[in-house]
């Protein structure tokens, strides 16, 4: 019984939160890695792109709510996704046309593009703060719990409860569908194949008659979709605050680098590696250990390796370890 309780506590406090956070990071990291693979720079505006997309979702959600449109028990935000993706795509394509294209034609060094993306970050950040303000917004409606802790306890008779929030389920399913769609697109469609070819070897791809402008445009549209979905899932699960989205940049970059920048499969794996390490290192293990260990060995302290404030230190350490020892990431074939 104690072992079962320990397992349930472990699932409830470690596996489920980490899986849903990992899915959010994975979708975000896919966008970073795609932009890196095709456009060849690290996009510092990514966090604010996610914030912008989520903001549009929130505005459309409010509109739908005022019109009484709902898809309960699912959150209305899901219905708003396509509209937000369209608007964010337009913004990214516009940004590319006005800003990035110039440097691409010049074949500017990647670091210049990084600085340019910091300028774009300022603009997007300003837009978001002007339109929706800096305060926290909660836009999660729909079912609160798929399984609530109380029901679970009553149902199994265990002392520990297992709760699955509605948003967790939505996150996992949406992220899974998104990833499946993206991988299908990259593997099976003509455009997807040309994107991969472009990412592997630009010159060869151009020689085989791939239209670079088209590849770049498709990349931005996909990136917009990924940014909106990642941002919305994170916002539904936690809450929306513009500055939080900026600080998501670090775990997302860490995820993309762990898997190897430019590798979509790696980005997904990286997202889960980062999320699970963060939760495992910052979780207070006292409860689980008390169940597992005999009473004489039960811990007095919280058994927490690092306080949750330091979760960024975890992403950062992973990032540094990977950069120092496996600079191409876990999933990139040796280059």
């Amino acid at each position, binding site marked *: 019984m104690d072992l079962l309780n320990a397992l349930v506590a472990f699932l409830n406090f470690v596996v489920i939160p980490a899986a849903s956070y990992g899915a959010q990071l994975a979708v975000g990291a896919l966008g970073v890695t795609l932009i890196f693979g095709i456009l060849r720079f690290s996009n510092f505006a990514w966090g604010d792109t996610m914030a912008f997309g989520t903001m549009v979702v929130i505005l459309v959600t409010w509109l739908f709510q005022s019109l009484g449109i709902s898809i309960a028990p699912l959150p209305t935000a899901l219905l708003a996704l396509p509209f937000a993706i369209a608007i964010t795509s337009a913004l990214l394509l516009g940004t590319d046309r006005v800003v990035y294209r110039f440097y691409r034609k010049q074949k500017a060094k990647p670091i210049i593009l990084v600085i340019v993306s910091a300028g774009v970050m300022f603009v997007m950040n300003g837009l978001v703060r002007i339109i929706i303000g800096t305060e926290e917004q909660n836009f999660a409606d729909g079912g609160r719990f798929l399984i609530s802790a109380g029901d679970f306890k009553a149902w199994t008779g265990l002392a520990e409860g297992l709760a699955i929030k509605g948003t967790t389920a939505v996150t996992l399913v949406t992220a899974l569908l998104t990833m499946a769609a993206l991988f299908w697109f990259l593997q099976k469609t003509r455009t997807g194949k040309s994107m991969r070819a472009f990412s592997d070897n630009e010159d060869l791809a151009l020689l085989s008659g791939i239209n670079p402008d088209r590849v770049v445009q498709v990349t931005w549209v996909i990136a917009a979709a990924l940014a909106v979905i990642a941002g919305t899932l994170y916002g539904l699960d936690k809450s929306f605050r513009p500055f939080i989205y900026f600080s998501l940049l*670090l775990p997302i970059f860490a995820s993309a680098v762990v898997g190897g920048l430019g590798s979509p499969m790696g980005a997904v794996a990286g997202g889960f590696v980062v999320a699970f390490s963060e939760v495992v290192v910052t979780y207070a293990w006292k409860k689980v250990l008390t169940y597992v260990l005999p009473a004489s060995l039960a811990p007095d302290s919280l058994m927490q390796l690092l306080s949750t404030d*330091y979760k960024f230190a975890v992403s950062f350490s992973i990032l540094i370890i990977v950069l120092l020892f496996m600079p191409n990431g876990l999933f990139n074939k040796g280059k």
Partner: protein
Amino acid sequence: MNTRAIYLFAGVGMLYVLTGLLLSWNVSLNILILGLLSAIMALGVNMQWGYAGLFSTGIVGSIALGGLAVVFVSGQPVPEAFAAGGWQAIGGLAVAVAGIAAAVAAWTYMAPGRLRNLAVAVILIGGFFLYRGIFDPAVERIEAFDPATHGNVGGFGLNSIWAWPVGGLFAAIAAWAIGKIALGLREDYLAIATLGIAEIVITAIKSEDWMSRGVKNFVGLPRPWPVPYEVDMQADPGFLAFCANWGLDPMTTSTLSVKGIYIVMFAMVLGILIWLLQRALNSPWGRMMRAIRDNEVSAAAMGKDVKRQHLIIFILGAAVVGMSGAMYVSMLGQLVPGEYTPLRFTFLIWIMVIVGGSGNNWGSVLGGLLVGWLWLIVDNAGPLVMGAITTGMADGPLKAHLVDAAPQLRLLTLGVALLLVLRFSPRGLLPEK
């Protein structure tokens, strides 16, 4: 200094004069103080980027470390708290540093193989638990002492001007560690890695209550020598007689003269730095740095140790930034960890450097004064302007929202300014020769 520079500096000077005439001299001088500080920060960043081409996004970390130095150097001593766990906490930190050093040594000197991996892992994991075992109880005892006013180990209670070089030293040590790890990486990896380090430094300052009181803020830090306090001036008969003699209002005169003293002090620091940097830039060392920046491979072929030179310039730049961070906190008299955001203290400084002119020291100063003015004037003039724009509108949620959002306009404006400069004048307002 050429005519273009003189015109531009005169133009920026006019902005400050106009602010003084139209708003108030108090505001104008306030902005000038912060503008001078920003100029010093921009000089440090310009050393890293303009001389060496290193893109670091960890500026805010150096600035915050400089601020932390003020807490240690000038914070009130708290002997009770220090006696409760000061030495033990220092011992814990020493164990942590020794553990990392031992792990690095093991990695460097042992033969590659499973044994080495095992040794490094054992040292790191064992060291971590040893450090936590020594450090945690000490911190608990320190934080337990009078948490409402103290809860920290306390500082040395020295004059805060001593904190300026110490702030530079703190930032330099951190930069040495970061440089050792991250300078070998490709340029955008350096940007990502430094972003992370800065985030960790800020988190530590926010949550390690035993040193900085965290989000409870550290207030009551003394002013640097020789800046007087306004209340003391107003109580001083000599000063009052002087004011009466010239028909001045003691209140305004005292606040303005305190600001004036700060401006003179900061301008002196800035002047000395520029003098040193201009000499360095025109020396053989400066030529070598530019050669490395422009073509690392050929510089290395000429026998220059590129990695070492990068590390040196990275440390020097961070030290300058750290010193300015200490100057900032000593002037404010308090450390507010929540204030240190990457947008304000990393990317804004970057905009100053790039708009001013990368690689040109005078450009950084110009950028610091100009962008600093733009950023801060919005606090004072933004609501007024937005209020004027929206006077025709009916009162309602939209108008209230627009007036509230006015300060955010600066993000948009500065972002657009950065993009325009990068596109149309990538070498900045005052290009490098």
